[in-house]
Structure formats: C-alpha cells, structure tokens
C-alpha cells in the first residue's frame, strides 16, 4: 500500500494539459489542387474510393477527396507524380455532415493534348459549418454544455476505433476533465458514439439502443467505417455502411482509426463547446458552399 502511494507521488501528473497541441506525423492527405494535373494516379491507388475522378463531361474533369472515406493509408501521397498531395498534419477534423468532409476541384481538359488545368473548387450546395453548428446548438439547447454522458456502440467496427475511444479515457487524455463520462446504458446517455460499418446483424440492436436513449440524443459517427463504410464499403450483403444509413448523425469524426484527440475534439463539437473545423493546411481553402465554381 505504502509503495503504491510512493509510486503514484513519484509519477506525478501525466495528463496532457492541452491534448490538441501535438501534431501527428500524418493526419489526412492535403491536395494542392492548383498543381494537380488530373492524372488520377491517386484515384487508382486509393483503396476506399476516397479520391474519385470524373471525366464523363467532355472538356471537363473533376477530382474529389472525401475524408469520410479516407483510411489515412498514404498511398496517394506516395503515388502522386506531381507531389501535389502532401501528408497533412491536421487531425481535429470533425463535421456535421458527410458532404462537409468532401472537397472537389474542377479542371478544364484540352481536347488536343488531354492536358488538364485547374479551374477552381466546386462545392455542392449544402449547409455551411456555421449553419450546421447553429442547428445542432439549437437542438441541444445548451443542455450538454457542462457534462456529457456517452454510450459507445460498436455497430460493426474492427475494434481499432474502440481502442482509441478507450484511450481517450486513459490518464494521458483523461476526457472526464471535460465533463465527458462513459456510461453503461443508453438510458443514461446524452450521446451515442457509434462505430461502423453498421452490419446487417447489428442494425436492429443499434436502432434499439438509439430508441433507448432520451432526447435530445446526439449521434456521433466515428471512424472511416462509421462515416462512410470505409474499406468494407456500403450496401454489401453484410455491411449496410455508414451510421447515417441507419440513424440521423449529428457529428462525423473521420479517421482510421481517429486518434484520441480527434475523438475528443468531435465530442466537444457535439457538445457545442467547440466549433467544427475543416482546415487542412494547404493552398486550397474550401470556399463557402452554394457559390458553385469559385473564380
């Protein structure tokens, strides 16, 4: 007993004061679209279809990157002959919709040479991060501002996300200091932290867990598979796909698996105490949605 006390005193505080300060060596790939030539080598090597090219319209070409699908394998970074894809170090990526995790660039294609020239960022119309944040805040009405009870539901994960969710509660990250607490029953929960892909065999259990949670219940999808089906895909005989195929999702935390800091960030976003950010350090800022092609 005495030795335990001595050891504990000697160890001191191991908790990171600011868990968001240290940058990882690799977060998500960042595409410098203006220096992209549209060769689509990256699309070939991407195992999940996070990178997609569309050249169905003559004279036009688009390249899109979705962090919802990205498993952070780095194949695109290695494959790009123009070195236009850089290993980004951003990890606090959370959003309120799948679409907010997607960037798409448009290119003009020269009919004679086949050469593609960057034209601008193309964004699908949809609510901006600010609008989504306001909607979520209105829905939870500040009720989750100080404490959050979380019920984790594994709806089909490979257990990688679970390892990192457990890590958020370890002495280093210690999420309880933010008022976040994991509970044993959905009846005690404000928020469901759901990993995927949602399997056919877990669909009913997931719906029942959701029904068991009191309003205003917030749903957070974790991981590439929870956000989009990831490497397992969507609509297969066994995997339905992203959590939003089954439940309304309020916040998406992409990554394979997301680091504990990313999960923590996503939970703070869901509480309405932190704003979602989608700012990959790169020269291609995302313009306001609804404006179509940025000139």
């Amino acid at each position, binding site marked *: 007993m005495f030795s335990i006390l001595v050891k504990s005193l000697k160890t001191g505080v191991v908790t990171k004061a600011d868990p968001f300060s240290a940058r990882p060596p690799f977060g998500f790939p960042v595409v410098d679209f203006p220096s992209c030539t549209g060769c689509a080598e990256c699309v070939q090597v991407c195992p999940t279809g996070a990178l997609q090219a569309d050249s169905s319209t003559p004279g036009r070409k688009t390249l899109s990157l979705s962090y919802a699908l990205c498993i952070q*394998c780095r194949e695109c970074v290695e494959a790009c002959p123009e070195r236009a894809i850089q290993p980004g170090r951003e990890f606090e990526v959370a959003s309120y919709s799948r679409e907010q995790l997607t960037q798409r660039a448009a290119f003009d294609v020269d009919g004679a040479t086949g050469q593609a020239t960057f034209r601008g960022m193309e964004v699908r119309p949809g609510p901006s991060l600010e609008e989504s944040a306001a909607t979520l805040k209105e829905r939870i009405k500040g009720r989750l501002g100080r404490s959050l009870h979380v019920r984790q539901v594994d709806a089909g994960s490979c257990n990688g996300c679970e390892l990192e969710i457990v890590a958020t509660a370890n002495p280093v990250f210690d999420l309880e200091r933010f008022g976040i607490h994991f509970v044993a029953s959905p009846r005690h929960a404000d928020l469901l932290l759901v990993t995927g892909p949602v399997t056919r065999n877990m669909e009913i259990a997931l719906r029942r867990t959701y029904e068991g949670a009191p309003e205003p219940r917030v749903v957070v999808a974790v991981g590439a598979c929870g956000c989009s089906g990831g490497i397992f895909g969507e609509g297969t005989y066994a995997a339905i796909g992203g959590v939003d195929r089954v439940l309304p999702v309020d916040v998406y935390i992409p990554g394979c698996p997301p680091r504990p800091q990313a999960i923590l960030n996503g939970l703070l976003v869901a509480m309405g105490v932190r704003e979602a950010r989608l700012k990959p350090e790169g020269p291609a800022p995302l313009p306001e949605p609804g404006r179509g092609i940025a000139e």
Partner: protein
Amino acid sequence: MSTACDVLRERLGLAAVTELRPREMAAEVQLDQLPAIADRAVASGLRLVSLFASDEGAERGFTIHHLWSGSEPATFMRLSAHVDPARPRFPSIAAKHPAANWFEREIMDYFGLVPDGHPNPKRVALHDDWPEAAWALRKAFVDGQSVPRVEGDFHPFRPVTGEGVFQVPVGPVHAGIIEPGHFRFGVAGEPVLYLQLRLFYVHKGTEKRFERLPWRHGLFLAESISGDTAVGHALAYAHAIERLLGVDVPPRAQYLRVVLLEMERLYNHVADIGAIATDVAFTVPASRAQILRERLVTIQERLFGARLLRGTVGLGGVKCDLTVGRRKELLIHLERLEGEFDDLIKLLIDSGTFTDRVDDTGVLGRQVAQDLGIVGMAARASGLDLDLRRDQPHDAYAALRFQVPVEEGGDVRARLMLRAREVEQSLLILKQALEGLPEGSVLAALPDSLPPSSSALGWAEAWRGECLHWIQTDARGQITRAKITDPSFKNWPGLAEAVPGNILPDFPVINKSFNLSYSGNDR
C-alpha cells in the same frame, strides 16, 4: 520428392503429396477419405489449424480443405477433396475432432454444404433472421444485395429449470467499450452453470470483400480484420501474396516486420494486463498499464507513423524504416518500459486481494484446450507448447533467439503471467532485431499480377495467436477465395468451457484474460 513429402504420405496413408512451396504441402483425396485421414493426422501429432470450403464455379463444384500443421516435419499440410454440386454434402470430423466444430458449421452457413454426421449441425454464423439458401460465399451469390430478414423464433438457447435457476442475457451491446456479442448465462444464484455464445454480430462479409478488391488493396482490408491485430493480419496476407508471387522479402524488411509484430504484442499485452486489473477494480496498476500502453503507441506513431501500426507492412516488405538514431530511441524507450513493467507485475502479484481473484479463476484445462484446438497465448497458458514463430518460423524469427513461455495453470493468473513472460521475450527479440538489423532495401519490387489458378498460405503468430490467410486466384489472376482464420474463431469455444463453475461477477475478468476479438471471429 523431398523426404518431408514421403513422411507425410506414409503417415497419412496418401497416394501422393505435392510440395507447393517450403512448408506448404498439399494432397488431393476423395471426400469419403477425409475422416480416416483426420484420425491418422491427429494420431501422428498434426494439429487442425483451419477447415474451409471454396467454390470452384458452377461446373466444377466445391472443394473442402482440411489444413493441418505439424512440427516433425515442420510444415503445413492441406488436404483437399472435391464436392459434387449435385450432392452438396461432406463428411464431418467434428464428433471425433471438436476443433472442426465451428469450421464445419460455418461452411454450412456460407456455402450450403451439409456436414454429414456433425453432432450439432445448427447455424453458427448466420443469425435467425437469415433466410434459407442465402449462401454468401457461393459464387452465384451477388455481394451487393441486402439479405431480407425472415420472421422466426428467437435464438433457441438451452433451457435451464429448477428452483433459483435462471438465465442472464448479456449483450449484444455491452456495458463497456467493447465489441458486440450476446452471452447467455445459465446460473444458479451466482455460480454459472453454462455459458452460451451468440456471436457474428459484426460479420462484415470480409472474405467476400477480398474477392471484390484489387489484391494490392486487400492489404488494407487485412489490417481491418481485427484492429488490434493490424500487423498480424497484414503480415499473414502479405506472406500469402508474396508466396503466390514467389517474391523474397529483403532481410532488412524481415527484421523490421519482427519489430512491428513484437511492438503489437507489447502494446496489447500491456493493455490487457491493465484491463485485467480494471476488471477486479484494482485501479492503480490499471492506470499504470494504461500509461505504459499510451507511451508505446505514442512512440509507434513517432517512429512508424501510426499509433496502431496501420500502413506499416507492405506487400514485399515494409513501408517504414528505422535510422540508427531512431533505433536507439526505441531501445532506450523499451529499456525504461522493462523496469516499469516489472514494477507493474510486482504490484499485481504481491497483492493478495488481486491474486485471490485471479488464482484458479476461469480454468481452461490442457486436454480441453487441445481438443478444441485452442491457439496462441490462451493455449500456452493451458500448457500447450505451440507457437508458429518457432514451429513454422516466418520473417526473421528463425535467426533470432527466444523462448516460448508455457504456463500450466490455465486460469486467469496463468494467462496474465504468460503475457508478462511474453513481454520479457518480446523485449529480448526486439533488442536482437534492432541491434542486428541488416542493411539494404525494405521493399521488394512486385510483378503486376498474381499468377492465375494458384493458391498460397500465409501465416503469422500475432499477439493473440496464429493468423492464417489462404488466398486462391482464378484463371485471370484475381483473388477468388480468401480464407481468413483468426485465432479468436478457435478460442471462443474455449471461453465457454472456462466459465462454468465460476461466479458470474468473475466473468468480465475471465473474458478479458482471453481478450478475444469479435471482429476477427465474425469477419
């Protein structure tokens, strides 16, 4: 013909044995010969490591494969027998060899082949609401469809009757942050009479998915079979692909693969030891273990680029390298870990309140473990001396000196102490691998396509036990069958044997001492 072929041919009473590659023998036999050969295999010390089917197309029918592992001669031996599609049945060996139990029922569930003579021919993988005749791994079954749900009885669990005797249902959504599965306990007060398992909630169609993905992308799917065994499964997959291609992995990469696999073993063993302490409410060592584990995954991210070592194994080698400086950094870290880890173990076993909870709790006897075909750490904690790193060495293990610890107790304490001793050995292996790292490249160049109509076996002894990947290609060189054997699939029946006789509150710690993967089991 090599002598190993002759030995096996004689022992198993076969007409011919082909050596496909080093440590990979194969023989074709008649379907009705399989049970007699299985008896001879067990009598001559072979161990059933996998049993699966493949669909060879509408005209050619199915093949049943029995995969055995032997140490004298040290090789895998695959027996395959043709099944006529007009008569979709095969002889069961499960009555005599319980290790085949779930394997044969899974073939029934996904291929619609009936195991004749199986003592319990019920669904194992398919849930009650699956329709009849939806056999997902048959070629005729289209992957991208949703399978309708059928109305039916709730899973028929074994009834319990008597005064004060009742059932306790747990799951699929559990109280902790763990994977889903349903446990049905029959209890008389606190003591557990029996435990029945209802798993396969996280069945993701992984084996079918391998058939759809390009083979290079399959590596990332392999990493997601069980997230805590990303390196183990990635290695097993990479080995199978490299053996198919006939590619030799550069020596430096072989050593780095050992480093990665042992780091994975370390962080999981350390985390599990902490989790065992958590489950008996001993929070100080639990927190200490969590700190050690967090430091390990942090340095993994720094040195290899990923906390859980994803994306580190490449086809043909590894996708990371260690400079002299970084090797030194890792060695210093491990040295510090060793001291702290010793303190942690001392703290646990010097505490009477802790050892009271783990001694003689959740005993899995040696004979039961052997009969069920238990593997890996759980097998070694029940006195079974098996480890593919030594018995069928892969990567650089043949060049490294290490021991395979074996504990006799079969209880929670044995599984805890086995982990502790394996951590010691891992540190020894890591020291040798890091100090003796050969110079050279880390990634071999690969041909553009896999050889057509071929197959190969890849294996790795991961932290939980052996991971086996059998990959088969079609006439165009595409993957047409990927059989993934995760250690959890073989070890779950062991948990069901270890729990009865214990009290219900001890279940969490018994379960944690096995720490089986639901995802790896369900795939």
